[in-house]
């Protein structure tokens, strides 16, 4: 076993410690911004939907503003976003470099994306259900929690899955500009030192990450769909 590994992926074995460290960093860059974005994204997605024209908390001005802000952030390429919000990052995280410095841009990059995912998931909830809930005397808060977030759950989980997968991608970008993680690892060893086995193993690990996230998503969706 040892021999086979040495033969095919010698550089990976040499950089074993760094690899494990990178996996850990990627894990942090995905999980922490992921959870924060989840909360903020759900909030924004709900607001986007319920303040729309004809919906339970119709509010044209608020809805318009939200739309504009989300579109703005969505249209900035992530690498540029990282640079553009350095002052904000410093203010919040205390530093703009390393894994810690990557967390803030990752949140900024993910929240608008996830908010849109949420919006489309919640839009799929049949208007008739909202109407039925209203006819039974449900308040807007009730409708959000007991109808939208519940009936939209399969779509929400799908959105969360896609968001986490895209976060892995963003974390690799963030890593390559100094944030650490698997992206950084692959670039430093695989790309710059032509150690192809490192690139290859990194790709495999990322693939496993993505598959695991997808798998969990699919299982959950199956569980909540009746």
């Amino acid at each position, binding site marked *: 076993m040892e021999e086979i590994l040495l033969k095919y992926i010698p550089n990976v074995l040499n950089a074993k410690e760094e690899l494990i460290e990178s996996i850990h960093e990627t894990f942090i860059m995905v999980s922490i911004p992921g959870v924060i974005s989840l909360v903020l994204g759900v909030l924004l997605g709900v607001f986007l939907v319920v303040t729309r024209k004809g919906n339970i908390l119709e509010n044209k001005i608020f809805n318009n503003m939200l739309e504009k802000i989300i579109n703005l952030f969505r249209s900035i390429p992530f690498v540029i976003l990282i640079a553009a919000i350095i002052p904000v990052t410093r203010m919040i995280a205390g530093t703009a470099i390393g894994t810690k410095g990557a967390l803030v841009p990752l949140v900024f990059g993910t929240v608008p994306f996830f908010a849109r995912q949420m919006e489309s998931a919640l839009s799929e909830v049949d208007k008739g259900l909202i109407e039925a809930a209203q006819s039974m005397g*449900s308040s807007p808060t009730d409708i959000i929690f007991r109808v939208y977030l519940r009936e939209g759950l399969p779509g929400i989980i799908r959105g969360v899955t896609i968001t986490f997968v895209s976060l892995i991608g963003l974390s690799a970008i963030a890593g390559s500009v100094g944030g650490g993680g698997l992206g950084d690892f692959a670039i430093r060893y695989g790309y710059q030192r032509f150690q192809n086995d490192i690139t290859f193993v990194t790709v495999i690990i990322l693939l496993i990450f993505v598959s695991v996230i997808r798998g969990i998503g699919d299982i959950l969706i199956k569980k909540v769909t*009746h």
Partner: protein
Amino acid sequence: MIEIRNVTKTFDDGKNKIIAVDNVSIKIEKGEIYGIIGYSGAGKSTLVRCINLLERPTKGKILFKGKDLTVFSEKNLREKRKKIGMIFQNFNLFNSRNVYHNVAYPLKGSKLSKSEEKKKVRELLQLVGLSDKENSYPSQLSGGQKQRVGIARALANDPEVLLCDEATSALDPKTTTSILKLLKELKEKLGLTIVLITHEMTVIKEICDRVSIMEQGRVIEEGNTIKIFSNPEKEATKGFLETATNSSKIFDVLQLKDNIFNIQKDDVLTKVNYLGDCTKDALISEVSRKFKINASILYGNLEILNQTPVGELIVLFIGETASIQKSIDYFREKGILVEVIEHGRNSSKVYTKCS
């Protein structure tokens, strides 16, 4: 129980202005089943949604037990809505909840304990005949069963009124009948007032005490179902009635060139409508004997509305013109409505109920 007073609803998207409901006034009494019938786009749904203010009337009032709902605060309105149940064409059940939790949905905040809630839900499911489906999800139910869950859910807060928007339109005829029967039972058992929207006259015929016919946002005719069936005034109403009977077909046949009934120039073709127990005297044979004419029935239809027979016949009178006139007069004296078809004279409508 409910009074719709001069309600108008316009939709205005900046470019087009649609008057969906146009100055409608309807008074619905406690314990009756009130039908509203009209073609697609007539404004029925908009009107019924105005009743529980899912749609806010542009003008007019909605009085529920004498109180104007349009001036209520959102919070008070929500309380009132609990007393006005609603069921829908697409059932609108929560797919993520099983039957039990669909029915229990509106009970949140009602201060029932868990065990009281359980008791209530079981009672409701028993009422609609679905006790064995408690743990099923909507996707596992048939259309009729889904509507039963919808009804149970709508009744959870013991409403006094049940609004039904095309509640049977997605169901087959047999299931429709069973749902209508259930609604009728509920009215009897719970003293429920029911407002029922439909485009099917057969539904009106089956259970409605009174009915309004809507066209282009307006109520064009209103009255108790028996009256509407036996003596409709407006063309649109007649159109609907024909969908519930075969009488339009007989007219098609009569208009055929080949004259399959062999109608002669002096024969008089009539449409005869009667109500109640006029039937018990053998009137057709009586006039035949008395006035020496022949009367042949080309078509007949009998409806039973609220235990009252409502009949329609197409009768061909053959004989001397004067005798035929006497026969028709004799029928009219007996309180039977006779309308002459394809004959120079204007038909006069004299109508009195048989005693």
